[in-house]
């Protein structure tokens, strides 16, 4: 049995586009049920306080109000289980119990026939808070006598992983060392659709619509928190308006709203507003890497040591906010031959919004630090910044290569992608120099960086519970069309289209004959959802196994119908043929009709029906790090090099990215347009994080970025044209040879832009850029301090 490749690598239209373009999509906010109520939360206005009293009496007097509740009412609710063995338990509960640890923590919830009424009543909830001293930075949190966020702990440390690898330490003897403290600022995914939950409890079953990246995990978590069996819970993730990791957290509101629906016997909905989103959906990054490298005189890195220091916020986030710090540690060496590593983690609770996931998940932070150290070492040694990378990059002869972080890199184009990026970036810089010559305020520069992105990761280190598999079910209808249902779900990446193509490929049917079902726990087999650049890998692996079972059976039936040997059967575009017998042919409809309806025509020994379910666990993934924190936590590794060409206005500090170059390798490209969209979209977010986006807090722990007017997302005028080159080094162990592409773009911009700014200002001798976002005032201060006082350390606000 063979099928001719027809969809892989081809430009094919997305199946989801028509409904999204015409207003026909269905997001959570579009779910409307008879008698539905709207909820509004009373959230803490203080960063750190004891809850003395909550009075909902006045709120309940508002006509139409159906209820107002606090944690005390939730007697049948269990806190989130604390799965992680070495992290301190935080026992997350849907509404605050006794204490609040960040501005935005939910204290009470009010329910009314519409959101207007719910907010009116919510404003009448009276809460007495006893303020406590806030802890707003890692330094404050670790200080002796620091106020404790969790009084039952001896300090504010949520998890600490001390690593001392003697082989790494020994490398530092007698070698030049270069060190730095690199801080990626607090920002977040900020999808255009905020979070939202709707729930209905009817006939003993709970149905929950939620804007999530993992409906099955959400269902399991609901069963842990509510007095319901999993079979009585259905979670639906409808169209999701962007996730980026923000919706790969299980939130307290996802318990509160279903609980209200059960308690009140009416459907209840909560749609997060943007202010709520910016203070209560997970924040991310806020990670400092304090690193030192031992370097040979020719620029070869020998070892890296240090700490990843994570400001977790209030730590009330599941899956855990400290996981990106561990992911950073496992990506510290990037695509470079750095033989030894000894890097630990400390994650600390502070009175800010809890941190969680954001696209990139620790890898942007690691790459920022390592690439900055490459530049610093090159400058120190008087080696060209490109050349020092050449001396350290792994090449094809090195593969498979196990990095000292533990990653097993089995394929890639690390050197080729780098050289291509260097060439294109240099050409771009020359073009822009010619175009902008004559502007006395503008300095131009470029930076080139490289990285690996572990894709299709273990979820164990992140969740302490789930591992890495996913599932697919393939069912052939009697008319020969296919229903393909998967445990992953979409947040807009185009997964429906990807799986439609792959199913058409595997089953030998047309794309129009495939319907992909996802995002509904009642209609799909168990799976872990869409995050970690995993969906195409895991879903296609399961799809291939399920399709193989279906095809084996279909081939036997087709052979029987055409009186041929199964070995001679081929299938293409919905039709089975016999090799060497041009006239013979039966359609998928014929075969599926026999399997499902006219079962008397089945060959002997073949059972009726035409469906199969398979699970797929990607090979090679390790779930537990060794004593030095090393782990091959991902199924495979995408690689890329990025080049940024920037102008810096020395009068204002304004940085403009003029052009952005990327050479990207995610193995086999199944859908070029979707891969490009993922890479370019990720770079745009990376540029935002590098230059614009900051979730700022004042010194008392008040959030200052509470609207899109003071949290600056990049617009069409800040994102430059991009040059994208694809290399294709197939992953040997992955179905179709594909590697994930979802997160790669976001990893490169911060270090590439930082290097480009430094190059642009090189004649001024400015201080090293060590933190993001690199805002205009920050750049201006580099310029002015260099002119007035020569080379200085970059002292920024480290909050």
């Amino acid at each position, binding site marked *: 049995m063979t099928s001719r490749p027809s969809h892989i690598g081809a430009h094919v239209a997305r199946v989801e586009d028509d409904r999204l373009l015409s207003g026909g999509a269905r997001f959570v906010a579009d779910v409307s049920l008879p008698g539905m109520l709207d909820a509004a939360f009373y959230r803490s206005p203080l960063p750190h306080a004891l809850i003395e009293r909550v009075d909902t009496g006045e709120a309940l007097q508002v006509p139409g109000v159906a209820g107002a509740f606090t944690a005390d009412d939730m007697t049948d609710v269990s806190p989130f289980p604390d799965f992680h063995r070495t992290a301190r338990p935080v026992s997350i509960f849907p509404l605050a119990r006794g204490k609040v640890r960040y501005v935005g923590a939910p204290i009470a919830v009010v329910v009314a026939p519409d959101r207007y009424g719910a907010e009116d009543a919510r404003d009448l909830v009276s809460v007495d808070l006893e303020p406590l001293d806030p802890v707003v930075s890692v330094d404050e949190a670790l200080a002796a006598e620091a106020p404790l966020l969790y009084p039952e702990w001896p300090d504010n440390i949520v998890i600490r992983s001390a690593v001392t690898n003697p082989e790494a330490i020994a490398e530092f003897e007698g070698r030049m060392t270069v060190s730095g403290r690199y801080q990626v600022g607090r920002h977040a995914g900020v999808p*255009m659709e905020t979070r939202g939950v709707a729930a209905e409890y009817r006939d003993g079953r709970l149905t929950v619509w939620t804007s999530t990246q993992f409906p099955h995990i959400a269902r399991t978590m609901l069963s842990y928190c509510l007095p319901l069996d999993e079979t009585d819970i259905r979670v639906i993730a409808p169209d999701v308006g962007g996730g980026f990791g923000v919706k790969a957290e299980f939130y307290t509101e996802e318990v509160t709203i279903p609980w209200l629906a059960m308690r009140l016997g009416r459907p209840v909905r909560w749609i997060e507003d943007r202010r709520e989103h910016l203070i209560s959906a997970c924040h991310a990054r806020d990670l400092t890497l304090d690193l030192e490298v031992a370097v040979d005189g020719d620029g070869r890195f020998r070892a890296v040591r240090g700490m990843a220091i994570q400001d977790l916020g209030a730590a009330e986030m599941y899956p855990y906010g400290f996981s990106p710090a561990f992911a950073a540690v496992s990506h510290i060496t990037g695509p470079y031959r750095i033989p030894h590593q000894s890097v630990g983690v400390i994650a600390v609770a502070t009175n800010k919004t809890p941190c969680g996931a954001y696209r990139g998940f620790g890898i942007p932070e690691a790459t920022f630090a390592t690439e900055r150290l490459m530049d610093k070492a090159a400058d120190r040694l008087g080696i060209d910044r490109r050349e020092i990378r050449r001396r350290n990059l792994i090449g094809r002869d090195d593969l498979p290569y196990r990095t000292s972080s533990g990653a097993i890199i089995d394929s890639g184009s690390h050197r080729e992608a780098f050289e291509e990026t260097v060439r294109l970036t240099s050409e771009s810089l020359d073009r822009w120099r010619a175009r902008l010559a004559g502007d006395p305020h503008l300095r131009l520069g470029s930076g080139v960086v490289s990285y690996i992105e572990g894709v299709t990761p273990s979820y164990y280190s992140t969740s302490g519970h789930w591992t890495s598999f996913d599932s697919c079910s393939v069912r052939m209808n009697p008319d020969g069309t296919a229903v393909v249902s998967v445990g992953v779900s979409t947040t*807009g*990446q185009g997964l429906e289209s990807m799986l439609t193509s792959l199913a058409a490929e595997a089953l030998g049917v047309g794309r129009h004959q495939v319907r992909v079902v996802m995002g509904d726990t009642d209609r799909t087999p168990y799976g872990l959802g869409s995050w970690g650049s995993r969906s195409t890998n895991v879903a296609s692996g399961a799809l291939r196994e399920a399709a193989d079972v279906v095809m084996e059976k279909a081939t036997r039936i087709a052979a029987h119908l055409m009186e041929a040997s199964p070995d001679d059967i081929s299938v293409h575009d919905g039709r089975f043929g016999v090799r060497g017998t041009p006239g013979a042919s039966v359609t998928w409809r014929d075969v599926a009709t026999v399997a499902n309806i006219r079962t008397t025509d089945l060959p002997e020994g073949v059972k009726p029906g035409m469906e199969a379910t398979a699970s797929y666990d990607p090979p090679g993934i390790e779930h537990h790090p060794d004593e030095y924190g090393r782990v091959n936590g991902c199924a495979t590794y995408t690689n890329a090099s990025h080049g940024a060409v920037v102008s810096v206005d020395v009068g204002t500090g304004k940085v403009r990215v003029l052009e952005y170059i990327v050479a990207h390798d995610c193995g086999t490209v199944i859908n070029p347009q979707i891969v490009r969209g993922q890479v*370019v*979209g990720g770079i745009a977010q990376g540029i935002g994080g590098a230059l614009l986006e900051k979730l700022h807090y004042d010194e008392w722990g008040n959030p200052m970025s509470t609207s*899109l007017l003071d949290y600056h997302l990049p617009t*069409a*005028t800040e*994102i430059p044209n991009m040059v994208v080159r694809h290399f294709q080094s197939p992953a040997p162990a992955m179905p179709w040879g594909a590697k994930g592409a979802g997160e790669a773009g976001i990893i490169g911009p911060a270090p590439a832009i930082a290097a480009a700014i430094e190059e642009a200002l090189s004649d001024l001798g400015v201080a090293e850029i060590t933190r993001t976002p690199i805002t205009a005032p920050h750049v201006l201060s580099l310029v002015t301090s260099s002119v007035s006082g020569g080379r200085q350390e970059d002292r920024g606000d480290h909050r």
Partner: protein
Amino acid sequence: MSVNGRPIELVLDARKLLVDVLREDLGLTGTHIGCEQGSCGACTVLVDGRPVRSCIMLGVQAEGCDVTTVEGITPEDGLNPMQQAFKDHHGLQCGFCTPGFLTTLAGVTPDAYPDEESVRELLSGNLCRCTGYEGILDAVLAAWGRDR
């Protein structure tokens, strides 16, 4: 008012936002709410032919106006040329912001945006978090018959 060419008569709370009237009273859920402050553009509709942020306009202010939503610019069969260009050029991913871009574009004169820079300026009133604007820009330039 009239909405997508249909006359509509409603009695409204004075404080109800136009976007909520469209979504809840009229079931036109293609118009999305992204910020409720007029900064993201997802809720853009045409009021008397001009792009307006329906999250910062009251429903009662639309009295006597012609309102057009994304449903109203969509042909009965298929897609309009700009929608088709978005599809052809991967001008959308999650699609949440897309109706706001489409309505904004439906309410402007291409000649007022003669070059790429001015088109970017036009698009900068709407936020998209998925595409990096590349596909959107490609789509607009193609639909307007421009070379990139």
